[in-house]
């Protein structure tokens, strides 16, 4: 990844942490004092390299894994803030990326009942919940939103 793209990438993630949400291209451009088009060009290259996922419009971020730019069934509270995750794996990934304890709230896709899991000291505190990955690894990026 080129240094300029890495700067945009690191700024994007720093803003996710600071704001508790994924920033738009204008917000990242303001922080870096560069043109919005420069941010969007970098994001496009990162999208093509599977370093993040753009919305279908191709201009704003949909998934800065493990963080989601849009509400999902996976809500994570950690380090005094909360974020949406793209999936259960990413929900734990937010605590991992922040190196923080946290709480993951979601719903069982079968029965719809609320599920909660505490993360303490890098582990699930007494959780008996199960994670199911439906799509084999070889196909994850065929449709990353579905995966």
């Amino acid at each position, binding site marked *: 990844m080129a240094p300029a793209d890495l700067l945009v990438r690191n700024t994007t993630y720093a803003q996710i942490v600071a704001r508790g949400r994924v920033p738009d291209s204008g917000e990242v451009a303001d922080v870096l004092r560069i043109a919005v088009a420069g941010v969007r060009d970098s994001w496009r290259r990162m999208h093509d390299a599977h370093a993040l996922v753009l919305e279908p419009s191709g201009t704003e971020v949909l998934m800065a894994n493990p963080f989601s730019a849009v509400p999902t069934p996976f809500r994570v509270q950690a380090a005094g803030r909360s974020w949406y995750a793209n999936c259960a794996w990413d929900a734990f990934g937010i605590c991992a990326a922040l190196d923080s304890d946290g709480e993951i709230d979601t719903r069982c896709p079968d029965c719809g009942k609320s599920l909660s*899991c505490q993360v303490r000291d890098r582990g699930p505190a007494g959780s008996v919940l199960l994670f199911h990955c439906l799509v084999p690894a070889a196909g994850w990026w065929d449709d990353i939103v579905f995966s």
Partner: protein
Amino acid sequence: MNLFRSEEHIVRWLDGRRPGQTLTAAQLCDLAHAWWGDRLDPDWRPHSREQNQAILDGLGLTSSFWTLP
């Protein structure tokens, strides 16, 4: 990639579809830390396919299901 109350709930949700792989929450947490733990590091660099496969292998996820393209 979802969390479920139990194996019974997974089977019911699958509704006849071919099952994928099931991990405990502890296994998932270990995977998440290995996969995403460096995501906010200023010195982060993209993982290679080999690095990511090594993470999966290191956690015992060695079946063909977990083989990256």
